[in-house]
């Protein structure tokens, strides 16, 4: 065997179709689809079932496209973090150019189909949500400020507005309150993750709150945001936009999240706020946050159905 053959890298195998699906972050998409479908379900008026399914499909594809463009932009730091190193681009299975092309095509396609199938307001909101996630959160904020996910969280809060607009052609009070709930839910959700993935984020140079301000500050912020979220989530009931079924669910779920936040705050920790329990409470709060949002919005839909 010659030296040049030894030094040459093994020929890369072409990507499998599943790799392109992984670029679309299917787990994130599922939550986005759920909140978008909830916005659509609680909106007054009627939308043809085919058009409703198309609207949800467009929200899913747009979220996947935004995730794809996010992976394209973050391929350098993804390679440094254990959680993301096996993603298709850092693993070498998909080229950055392919990911960029896929993201752009799906973004444009989803907005166009949304406009054709429903209305321009829904399409415009969809375009704004993609642009906000990719340009404002991914490219501008994520590597610059510890408040990245606070402001960037707005991108993930758009789906209920889009779902509602697909039916009504406008924006109402209830979807704005749903937007607020997701907006306030995002910080405790991601900062809980950042607490137990702190070393990964520090290695990749991402200024998440626990990395920049310390774990103790992050614990206080998580608890404060759970209080804000618990209060805000009751507003649809208090303002007469939702009934008792939702109200009871919001109170119970909100109280549960505050308890989770309190446990994160009071976790056994050293002087710097680093957990001595392998971040058990933060992991529990992260898991709870996923259930919280799913059950809260399910309760809202049920409330509308029975109300």
């Amino acid at each position, binding site marked *: *065997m*010659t030296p*040049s*053959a030894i030094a*040459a890298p*093994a*020929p890369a*195998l*072409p*990507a*499998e*179709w599943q790799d*392109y699906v992984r670029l679309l972050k299917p787990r994130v998409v599922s939550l986005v689809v759920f909140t978008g479908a909830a916005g659509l379900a609680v909106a007054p008026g009627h939308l*043809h*079932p*085919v*058009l409703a399914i*198309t609207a949800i*499909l467009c929200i899913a594809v747009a979220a996947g496209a935004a995730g794809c463009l996010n992976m394209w932009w973050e391929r350098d730091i993804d390679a440094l973090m254990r959680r993301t190193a096996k993603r298709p681009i850092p693993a070498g299975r998909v080229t950055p150019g392919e990911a960029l092309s896929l993201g752009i095509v799906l973004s444009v396609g989803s907005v166009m*189909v949304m406009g*054709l*199938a429903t209305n321009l307001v829904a399409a415009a909101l969809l375009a704004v949500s993609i642009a906000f996630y990719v340009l404002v959160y991914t490219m501008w904020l994520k590597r610059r400020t510890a408040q990245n996910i606070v402001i960037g969280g707005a991108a993930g809060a758009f789906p209920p507005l889009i779902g509602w607009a697909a039916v009504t052609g406008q924006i109402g009070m209830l979807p704005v309150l749903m937007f607020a709930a997701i907006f306030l839910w995002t910080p405790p959700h991601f900062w809980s993750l950042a607490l137990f993935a702190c070393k990964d984020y520090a290695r990749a140079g991402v200024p998440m709150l626990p990395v920049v301000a310390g774990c103790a500050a992050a614990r206080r912020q998580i608890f404060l945001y759970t209080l804000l979220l618990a209060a805000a989530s009751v507003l649809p009931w208090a303002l007469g936009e939702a009934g008792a079924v939702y109200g009871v669910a919001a109170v119970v779920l909100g109280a549960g999240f505050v308890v989770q936040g309190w446990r994160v705050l009071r976790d056994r920790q050293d002087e710097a706020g680093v957990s001595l329990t392998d971040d058990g409470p933060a992991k529990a709060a992260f898991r709870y946050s996923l259930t919280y949002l799913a059950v809260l919005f399910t309760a809202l839909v049920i409330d509308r159905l029975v109300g």
Partner: protein
Amino acid sequence: MDEDFPPRPGLFESAEIRRRQRGRNLALLVVLVLLAVLFFAITIAKLSHS
């Protein structure tokens, strides 16, 4: 120029490459067919609505 550079795929790699290409082609076919069905359904829904 070295005859082994760039390295040529062996038998196993060739079969794996073909399997992956076939999978991608099939997935693309499914997506295109579903898109055609979707656009048809949207058209019918829009027509019935108007």
